[in-house]
């Protein structure tokens, strides 16, 4: 329980690194995507440019208090996820505020941002926002099923819910990672990750061509900037969470960068290959294969 | 048809009950029923009535008899309030077919005799077969004959009711007198038992029988009268 300024500043630095890495990661991934389709793609610095532009817009409108607060909630969700997550294993500097709680706290803190976003979008009064939110929530419920199964399986495996201890248990070589010791749980979790990142085939929430563009339809300027910042943080933090749980964690930033990139790339890769699901299809899908994997993951420990 | 069979089956069932009762029934050769024997032995001395049945009916089980009288009273009351004749319904000049001369005249002769027999029966209730109920019934049959002879005859309700009520009250009062003056409610021994076998014997028993007789006669007449009146009225 370290409330010192030093800790705060280290955490802030970590947040800065993560944000920038998140943006770089997204532009890199988009560039890779462009290359796949034979294009050059955006410049690597495009996310920073976009963000600068968004923060510097000259006129902004608001639909009300909750609309205004929504992005704050959303960003808080991402930042909070980062704050409660130990980024680098064994490092005091990069363990953030992970002493506040364990894996369960992180899992549930994701909802904080979702709720804020949902409410902010709701107050926007735009029908598409609500439709997007409803789809997002519906999909989210089923994403959580394999995720919960996987988390429980890990907890059974390691007898702990503390992330640092889970990472500690995976130290000692490539083959002590959970992905090898508990492949079913990893499988279930990685499949649920697809939904969490919201890439195709699970991007009906934003569905740019159908309900442009879902929840953030009315958001612009600084608000959108907040959301984009959050995306950057959230993607890294979530990937880092999975890294910690399944891929042996990271002992330094390089390892973290490589692993988070690969984890994030996994979802993009799938998205490149598969077309979009309708919401009931994705709901059903998550309750089939990933859930089955999750159940297997628990059954092997019974 | 099924119902008939069912009924027959049921009657067979009831018959079975009776059959089973019959199996344990045998005709005694001695009066060995303790209660009956007690009455046979002691009725004469305790109640002073030659007719043991009267002794039982009026004294030992006098309370039952009070109930019987009440039942007749109830029946008469119910009939009179159910078949209540409203004034406006009475048609004075009803058409009634004339009865035969023989019936009219012979009834004029016989009815007083019947009344006399009836009175005799209930006055001698404690001595000879008969009693209040029987006597009352005979009197009522006299009334019935009168009605047959003269369908338009009206039984005087007021008179009948008066006789009925007064005798009823008298019965109750006699009972209470028994309670106050002798051993218990309806005890006949608050009057002297007198000499066995004579008219003025058995304490208040004859008195009670007289009232019962009057009451029963009145009540039955009342019932007959009410029903017949009602029928007449409807026929017209």
């Amino acid at each position: 329980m370290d409330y010192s300024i030093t800790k705060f500043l280290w955490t802030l630095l970590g947040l800065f690194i993560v944000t920038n890495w998140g943006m770089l990661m997204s532009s890199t991934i988009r560039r890779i995507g462009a290359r796949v389709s034979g294009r050059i793609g955006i410049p690597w610095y495009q996310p920073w440019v976009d963000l600068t532009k968004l923060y510097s817009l000259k006129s902004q409108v608001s639909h009300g208090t909750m609309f205004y607060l929504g992005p704050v909630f959303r960003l808080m969700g991402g930042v909070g996820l980062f704050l409660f997550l130990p980024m680098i294993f064994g490092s005091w500097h990069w363990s953030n505020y992970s002493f506040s709680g364990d894996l369960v706290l992180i899992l549930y803190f994701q909802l904080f941002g979702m709720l804020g976003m949902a409410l902010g979008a709701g107050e926007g009064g735009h029908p598409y926002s609500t439709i997007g939110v409803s789809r997002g929530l519906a999909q989210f419920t089923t994403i959580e099923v394999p995720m919960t199964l996987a988390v429980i399986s890990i907890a059974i495996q390691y007898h702990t819910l503390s992330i640092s201890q889970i990472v500690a248990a995976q130290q000692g070589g490539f083959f002590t990672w959970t992905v090898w010791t508990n492949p079913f749980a990893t499988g279930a979790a990685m499949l649920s990750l697809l939904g969490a990142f919201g890439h195709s085939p699970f991007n009906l929430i934003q569905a740019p061509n159908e309900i442009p563009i879902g929840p953030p339809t009315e958001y612009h300027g600084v608000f959108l900037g907040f959301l984009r910042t959050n995306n950057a943080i959230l993607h890294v933090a979530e990937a880092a969470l999975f890294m910690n749980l399944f891929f042996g964690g990271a002992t330094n930033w390089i390892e973290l960068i490589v692993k988070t990139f690969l984890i994030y790339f996994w979802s993009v890769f799938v998205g490149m290959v598969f077309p979009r699901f309708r919401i009931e299809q994705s709901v059903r899908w998550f309750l089939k294969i990933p859930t089955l994997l999750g159940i297997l993951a628990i059954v092997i420990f019974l | 048809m099924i119902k008939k069979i069912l009924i027959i089956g049921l009657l067979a069932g009831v018959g079975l009950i009776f059959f089973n009762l019959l199996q344990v029934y045998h005709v005694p050769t001695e009066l060995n029923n303790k209660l009956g024997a007690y009455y046979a032995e002691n009725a004469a001395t305790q109640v002073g009535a030659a007719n043991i049945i009267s002794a039982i009916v009026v004294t030992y089980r006098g309370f039952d008899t009070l109930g019987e009288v009440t039942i007749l009273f109830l029946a008469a009351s119910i009939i009179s309030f159910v078949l209540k004749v409203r004034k406006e319904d009475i048609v004075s000049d009803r058409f009634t077919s004339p009865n035969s001369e023989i019936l009219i005249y012979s009834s004029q002769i016989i009815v007083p005799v019947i009344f006399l027999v009836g009175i005799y029966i209930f006055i001698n209730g404690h001595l000879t077969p008969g009693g209040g109920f029987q006597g009352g019934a005979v009197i009522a049959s006299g009334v019935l004959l009168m009605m047959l002879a003269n369908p338009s005859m009206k039984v005087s309700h007021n008179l009948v009711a008066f006789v009925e009520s007064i005798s009823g009250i008298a019965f109750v009062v006699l009972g209470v007198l028994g309670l106050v003056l002798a051993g218990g409610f309806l005890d006949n021994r608050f009057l002297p038992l007198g000499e066995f076998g004579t008219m003025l014997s058995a304490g208040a028993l004859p008195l009670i029988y007289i009232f019962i007789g009057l009451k029963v006669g009145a009540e039955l007449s009342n019932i007959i009268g009410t029903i017949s009146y009602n029928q007449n009225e409807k026929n017209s």
Partner: protein
Amino acid sequence: MEKENKPQDIPVVKTKNFIAPENEKRTVTAPDGSLIEVDPINDYFCQERPEEYKVKSGAVEKFLNWARAESLWVLGFGTGCGSIEIPPLVTPRFDMYRYGVQMRPTPRQSNVFIISGYLSVKTLKRAIRSYEQMPSPKYVIGLGSCTINGGMYWDSYNTINRLDHYLPVDVYIAGCMPRPEALLAGFAKLKELIKAGKAEKANEYIRNLDWYKANQKKIIKDWNMPDYNW
């Protein structure tokens, strides 16, 4: 770009006041039984006039202008046949992404509006609304001859001839049809203007709002929206 379309050149013409049926006042009953009068235009919409934003200068602003220029978010709204020329831009052959040009599905998040070809009166209304909903600074590219002088539709009963009577245009791309390359050139021109701090047509629109509105209302007979669509 050119100053020949001075507002004072064309007199403001008062049009007959048209009230669309859906905008007529109506009464509704509140749950407590009281009657409430609804005046749709005034009640549902923000009726305030927009204000001009301050054009700053200096190093920071220069950097920001560079950022704005390198991040052109185009509203995905095709108005005429010219819109067929936009999709090729995302193909490997043209790949507009490398110039920082991206498509956005909602006006709120866009800052470049390509009027791609002729603009029928009906579409004009939508174009105006979308334009006004875009946050400043915002830019308009007129694509094709139709937006300059009406092109082949110059005598049509139902298309506008000069776009800049209705919306402030930053860049015109001439041709019928201009090829995607021309569009890319137009973007390059727009970037130049922005970087130079000269692409402030959004402010001009606000400054001359009355004139624009008069023009718009003159051609749009069934004007059924507030004067400025926030």
